[in-house]
C-alpha cells in the first residue's frame, strides 16, 4: 500500500537520543501538546484539576481522562510495536469485540470468571497469531491481512453472542472495568502496568532494536541473521493480546458485551495515538510511553470538547486537524523549510 520509493540519501534526522535527561523529556512536543490541551480544558472548566478522595478512590476530571483513555492507550501499546515493524493492525477493534463477547458468554453460561478472562485473552492471542501468520507466512500486506479480521471479526463476535448484547453481573469482570486499586481506577492501573512491562522488555533487551531493524528494512534484517518472521508473529500476537485486554475493560465497564459497538473505530484512534507519539508509519524507531501519551492527548481533547459544550461530533473535525498538522510537520517538505531557518541547521 505504501508507495515504493527508493531513497538512497543518508537520513537527515538525528538518531533518537538515549538515555535522555528529564529536561529534554519535558520539552518533547507531545508533552507540550498535552500540557496545552489540559491548560485549555482548565480555562474552559476551572475545576478540571480538582481531584478528590472519596470511598477509597480518586475522583476528578483528570482521573476521568486517564480512565477513559486507558482502552486506547492499551491498544496503542500493541499498535506501536506493529507500526514499528512497518505494519498496521486494523483488526484490534474487532478483536476487542470478540474478547468481550467470549468473556461475557462464558460467565453467563456458568464458568468461573478467571477461566472466562483467560479464554478472552486466549481468543485475542489466537486472533493476533492469525494476523501474524497472514503477514509472515503468506506475505500479505499488513493492512489487507488485518482487514480480513476487521470485516469478519465483528461477525464472529456476533456469532458468539448470537446477536444479543450479553449482560453479566460477575464481580470479577466488572472489577476489571470499574474497580480501583490504590485509589486509581483499574483500567489505568492495567494500562500503566502493561506500558511499564512492555517498555522494560523492549528497551532492556535487544527486542526493541530487532523490531526497529525489521521495520526499517526487512530484507536487510533477514540477511543480518534475524528471524524476522518469528519477530513479526510475536508482535502481531502481542497486539491481539493488548486488544483482548482492552476488550475486557470495555465489556466490564458497561457490564455487557456489545458485539456491534465495542471498540468500534478504536483502531483508528490507536493508530492516531501512535502517530502523535512520534512513531513513523514507515517503520523504524518507536516509543511506547509516547504512544500512551498520544492516547492521553486524544482523550484530553475528547473530554475538553465534551465539557465545553460542543457536540461530540466536533471531535472528528478536531482530530483530523491534528492529523493534518502532524503530517505537515513530519513531511520532508517542512523538514526542508526548517533546515533553512538559522539555528535549526545541523
Amino acid at each position, binding site marked *: 500500500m505504501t508507495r515504493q520509493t527508493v531513497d538512497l540519501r543518508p537520513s537527515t534526522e538525528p538518531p533518537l537520543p538515549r538515555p535522555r535527561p528529564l529536561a529534554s523529556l519535558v520539552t518533547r512536543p507531545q508533552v507540550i501538546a498535552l500540557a496545552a490541551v489540559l491548560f485549555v480544558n482548565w480555562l474552559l472548566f476551572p475545576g478540571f484539576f480538582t481531584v478528590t478522595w472519596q470511598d477509597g478512590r480518586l475522583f476528578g476530571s483528570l482521573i476521568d481522562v486517564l480512565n477513559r483513555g486507558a482502552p486506547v492507550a492499551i491498544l496503542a501499546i500493541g499498535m506501536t510495536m506493529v507500526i514499528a515493524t512497518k505494519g498496521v493492525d486494523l483488526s484490534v477493534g474487532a478483536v476487542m469485540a470478540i474478547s468481550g463477547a467470549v468473556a461475557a458468554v462464558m460467565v453467563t453460561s456458568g464458568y468461573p470468571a478467571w477461566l472466562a478472562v483467560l479464554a478472552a485473552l486466549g481468543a485475542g492471542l489466537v486472533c493476533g497469531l492469525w494476523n501474524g501468520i497472514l503477514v509472515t507466512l503468506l506475505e500479505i500486506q499488513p493492512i489487507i491481512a488485518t482487514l480480513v479480521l476487521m470485516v469478519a471479526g*465483528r*461477525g464472529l463476535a456476533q456469532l458468539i453472542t448470537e446477536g444479543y448484547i450479553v449482560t453479566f453481573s460477575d464481580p470479577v469482570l466488572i472489577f476489571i472495568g470499574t474497580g480501583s486499586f490504590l485509589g486509581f481506577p483499574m483500567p489505568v492501573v492495567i494500562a500503566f502496568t502493561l506500558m511499564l512491562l512492555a517498555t522494560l522488555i523492549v528497551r532492556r533487551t535487544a527486542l526493541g532494536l530487532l523490531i526497529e531493524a525489521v521495520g526499517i528494512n526487512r530484507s536487510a534484517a533477514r540477511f543480518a541473521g534475524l528471524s524476522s518472521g518469528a519477530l513479526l508473529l510475536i508482535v502481531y500476537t502481542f497486539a491481539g493480546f493488548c486488544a483482548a485486554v482492552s476488550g475486557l475493560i470495555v465489556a466490564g465497564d458497561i457490564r455487557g458485551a456489545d458485539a456491534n459497538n465495542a471498540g468500534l473505530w478504536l483502531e483508528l484512534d490507536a493508530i492516531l495515538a501512535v502517530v502523535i507519539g512520534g512513531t513513523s508509519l514507515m517503520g523504524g524507531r518507536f516509543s511506547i510511553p509516547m504512544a500512551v501519551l498520544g492516547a492521553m492527548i486524544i482523550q484530553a481533547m475528547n473530554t475538553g470538547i465534551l465539557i465545553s459544550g460542543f457536540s461530540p461530533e466536533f471531535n472528528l473535525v478536531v482530530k483530523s486537524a491534528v492529523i493534518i498538522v502532524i503530517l505537515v510537520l513530519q*513531511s520532508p517538505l517542512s523538514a526542508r523549510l526548517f533546515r533553512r531557518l538559522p539555528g535549526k541547521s545541523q
Partner: protein
Amino acid sequence: MTRSLRPLLATTLIFLFAYLLAVTQHPAMFSTRVLGNFLTDNAFLGIAAVGMTFVILSGGIDLSVGAVIGFTTVLIAVLIMWLSLHPLVAFAIALTVAACFGAVMGAAIHYLKVPSFIVTLAGMFLARGGASVLSPDSIGIQHAFYSGVSKSYILMPGGGRLTVVGIIMLAVFAVAILLAHRTRFGSNVYALGGSETSAALMGVPVARTTIAIYALSSFLAGLAGVVFSLYTSAGYSLNALGVELDAIAAVVIGGTLLTGGYGFVAGTFIGVMLQGLVQTYIVFDGTLSSWWTKIVVGVLLFMFIVLQRLVFRAGPRRT
C-alpha cells in the same frame, strides 16, 4: 489464456457457481426481479468501488469513501431542503466539492510524501465530522424530482425493474472500463501502481496523475452519495458507515492486486455482485442471521488474497 487473466476468470467462475448453488436452493432467485434489485441495492457500493479500483491500481488506498458518501448526502439534503435549490444544482455543487476534496488529498499524498492510508484517514474524520457539524440529525428530502426519479424505471422482461440508480451504476462501470484500458490516464495509473520510480523515469506526470486519481475516487464517492440520497431520500452524517471496507473487499475479490499495477474494473463489478449475492441469499434463506454476511465476505476476501499470492508467487516479489 494468459496467466494474468486467471484471477478475473476465477472470480467470474466462483460467482457463477455461487449463483447456481443459490438458484438450486431458491429457484425464485433466478429472475430479472432479483437482478434488478441487485443492481439497485448495490449501486452506491458499486460506484464507490470503481473509484477505489483506480486508487488501488495506483498502489494506494482511500479510506475516506464512506465518509464522503455520508457528507454528500447531508450536503445535498441541506442544499435542497434549507436553501431550496433544485436537486440537479445541488448534485453539481456536491460533486464539485467532493472532487476538490479528493484533489486536496491527492496533493497532500504527493507533495507531503505521506502514505495514502493516513491522509485518507484524516479525510475520513474530516468528512464525517463536517457532515455532523452541518447537521447531526437525519434530514428527509421531499422534492418532486426525487419522487419522479424513484418512480421511473425500465421494465425488463420477467418483471424486473432497472431503476435510474442501477442505470447510473452500469454507466459508471462502462465509462470506467474505457478510462482504465483505453486512455492515457488509465495507462498512467497502471504505470504508477507498477512502480512510482519507473513511472516517473518514463515520463508519467506523477503529481498530476496522483491528484487526478484521488479526485476521481472522491468524485465517484460523491456520485455514490447522490445515488444513496436518491435511494433513501434522506441525508444523514452516519450514512454509508464502513462502505470503504466493502469497496476494498469488492476490489480485492474482483482480482485487483493490492500492491497496485494489476487488475480490471470489470472484476470489481463481479466483486460487488458477489457481495450482493451473499446478502440476497441470506435474506432468501431467512434462517441465517445478518452477521453471516460479514463472516462470508471476510472468508471470500481471505480466499482471494491467498489465490492472488499463489498466482503471483512466481512473479517479482515486492516487500
